[in-house]
């Protein structure tokens, strides 16, 4: 919301001396146009978000044209292609459905990824406004906004992602590593051993190199 304009300004101030920096011994100074062309990424705090906006209905049209062939009209996914909507409340189930709505912690990731890497096979073809609209439609499909909603740089950080608190930093060093770092048993470690599962029962392995 109000945080990132200051950040952008701060970054502009910080990088200002760079343009005047002495040429390196190897390589050269990157020009501002070059950095702008490649530096498209967005952060959870909104850093990097460009001006622009898009609403759900515009997003629906764009999604239908550019995305629905693989992801389905409502983000439900076609065949093996990723589901983008649904699955909320399933993360502790046997087969969790991980979508933007059920799993992704930050909206910035959706905007960033759609803008830089989608549509699959025609990446970098969406404008900023188109990306705002498609992300608005994805929020709508995940029941997170109503159909009147318009997403913009101004209200971007107001959107609450259901699984924002669902992640914790790798704790193996304090949980698993100590538990697995004891001198191991070498002899008479257990009484019985029985086979409980066979891969050949499933029979999903390719047979030979012609498969």
């Amino acid at each position, binding site marked *: 919301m109000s945080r990132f304009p200051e950040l952008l300004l701060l970054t502009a101030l910080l990088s200002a001396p*760079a343009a005047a920096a002495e040429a390196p011994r190897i*390589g050269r100074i990157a020009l501002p146009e070059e950095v702008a062309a490649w530096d498209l990424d967005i*952060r959870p705090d909104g850093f990097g978000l460009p001006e622009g906006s898009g609403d759900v209905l515009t997003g629906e049209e764009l999604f239908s044209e550019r995305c629905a062939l693989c992801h389905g009209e409502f983000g439900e996914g076609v065949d093996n292609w990723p589901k983008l909507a649904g699955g909320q409340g399933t993360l502790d189930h046997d087969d969790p459905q991980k979508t933007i709505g059920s799993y992704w912690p930050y909206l910035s990731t959706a905007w960033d990824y759609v803008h830089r890497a989608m549509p699959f096979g025609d*990446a970098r073809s969406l404008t900023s406004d188109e990306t705002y609209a498609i992300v608005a439609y994805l929020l709508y499909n995940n029941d997170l906004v109503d159909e009147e909603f318009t997403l913009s740089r101004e209200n971007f950080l107001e959107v609450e992602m259901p699984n924002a608190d669902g992640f914790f930093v*790798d704790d193996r060093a304090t949980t*698993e590593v100590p538990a697995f770092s004891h001198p191991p048993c070498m002899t008479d470690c257990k009484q019985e051993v029985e086979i409980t599962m066979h891969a050949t029962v499933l029979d999903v392995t390719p047979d030979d190199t012609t498969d």
Partner: protein
Amino acid sequence: MTDTTKKGTTRRGFLAGAAAGGALAATAARAGGPDPLITEVQPWAQSLGDGVDATPYGMPIHFESHVVRRNVEWLTADTISSVNFTPIHELDGTITPQGCAFERHHAGAIELAKPDWRLMIHGLVERPLVFTYDDLIRFPRENHTYFLECAANGGMEWAGAQLNGCQFTHGMIHNMEYTGIPLRTLLAEAGVKPEGKWVLMEGADASSMSRSIPIGKALDDVLVAFKANGEALRKEHGYPVRLVVPGWEGNMWVKWLRRVEVGDQPWEHREETSKYTDTMADGRSRRWTWEMDAKSIITSPSPQAPITHGPGPTVISGLAWSGRGSIREVHVSLDGGKNWQQARLSGASHDKALHRFYFEFDWNGSELLLQSRAVDSTGYVQPTKEQLRSFRGVNSVYHNNGIHTWWVKTNGEAENVEIS
């Protein structure tokens, strides 16, 4: 000449047959009669082979045509954002031949010529820089051998035994000697500002593959590599330049590297939120699970490499590795983990690299439940799958380093099984 050719074809046919039925060949050798491969003059001992200009860049001999990367069609929606598998059941030693080293792409293997390659370093640096390939190779170089293991290697096996062969259960891995420039050298050229705590690495392909790496790792052992196993990187492995992130999950080894941005926070991009996060039984998920823990696998015998010679002297061969250091010991069990014996480590021992182990024994022809267990230089002991599941449940997708079991039957065939 015609006679010789015919004879050669016949001999090759015989050899192929013998290779397919190793037990048969062993029996024939014991039969007592003179071996015609010795008593008759063979065509290769008489006529001439290929000239030195026949193969400017060679491929393996056609008898080895089964030693190739394999795809498992049902795993992914298409072959572009997909993975294939290294034939580790047929390899030995530790260096993976590049031509059969596994691939994992998110938008296909792109063709990027050296003259078209650019690397940009920007963000919280004193001076944003652009390097060409010719610039890059003027920096002081280092050579290191490291494993690259996909975070999802073995991921299909979390809920139980699925794929029958170590190529499929453990083959999202390769091990190469890399030549490259330490990332810290390039970052020093740009001058990282004190508030620069994270580095974003991005690839030049359409997936814009990007990951956040803490500055400590970036300044430690990360390499910007341009050669592997002595030659240029293969196209599918990031030609002309890729990132090497020793010990850490393969996804972070950004290929076709084009951009390094220094920032004060992680970016939390798609490949570190939606993907490469590990969901626990309670529905919460670990993020930033970068290190690949100590792991091992018996590559032979295995489902694709059965015992064909019958009872008697038998070689167990396998691989062990750890993202947290080198391998101190490998233990082998013939009885499903009731009893363990020390395996023999062979060859070079490098940090965060594959190690080859062997265990020689006299097989009496009875059933075996083969397992291997790695111990790394930190004292971490490779856990069982049950131990891992007790911490994580079965939905974490990534980072399965559990002990694997092969059931060897009395006929020498092996199967992927789970045991109690």
